[in-house]
């Protein structure tokens, strides 16, 4: 954790708090291997859990693509509406 805290200009308890939030969200886990060590002296190492994050970004990406398609078609509709407006006599 000292290692994790090094690049940040915040206290170790603050880092610990952030880690707990990430852990609750399932984005990191604590290693089991460290259980044999005295816990007080050395907290169990954290491990990144990439899968939930990948799931979330994958979902967002699908969503983004769907809407990109929609907005591409919407652009075409808008172009047509603008042209109609410009040429005055618009059909309903």
């Amino acid at each position, binding site marked *: 954790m000292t290692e994790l805290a090094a690049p940040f200009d915040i206290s170790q308890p603050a880092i610990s708090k952030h880690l707990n939030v990430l852990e609750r969200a399932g984005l990191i886990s604590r290693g089991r291997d460290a259980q044999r060590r005295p816990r007080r002296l050395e907290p169990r190492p954290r491990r990144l859990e990439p899968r939930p994050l990948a799931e979330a970004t994958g979902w*967002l990406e699908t*969503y983004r693509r769907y*809407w990109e*398609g929609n*907005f591409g078609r*919407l652009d075409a509709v808008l*172009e047509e509406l*603008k042209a109609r407006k410009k040429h005055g006599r618009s059909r309903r």
Partner: protein
Amino acid sequence: MNSSGALKVTAQSDREIVMTRVFDAPRNLVFDAYTKPELLRRWLGVFGGYSMPVCEVDLRVGGTYRFVWRGPDGAEMGVRGVYREVVRPERLVHTEKFDEAWYPGEALITVLKSPMESGVAQSYDKLAELLASGALEKARR
């Protein structure tokens, strides 16, 4: 068409997605495209053989809308919702619930159309979707 900006999608919080997109058109035309059935069924979800045989809009606060898409294999997907705010041309707020919803509660969609600072012909569209949030629904009451 390429004068329009790229779509930006961000997860604002656990239950909120913000999409930002620039359109090269006056706001009232964008508003029309979002609210007139004959325009909606030309762009919303109509791709890959899907069309929108049902597109009904009762555009007033408390009014409902009903969209049904039909795929090439005949499969249908429907969605309905209620308009909560209708302020032409800058603001449209409505609920959204799919017939076979894969989530609890309902989504709340806010479409904001802000004019760009440069260029009168441009407007930008921001769509925030508050997903399936019982808490948010309660907060509104």
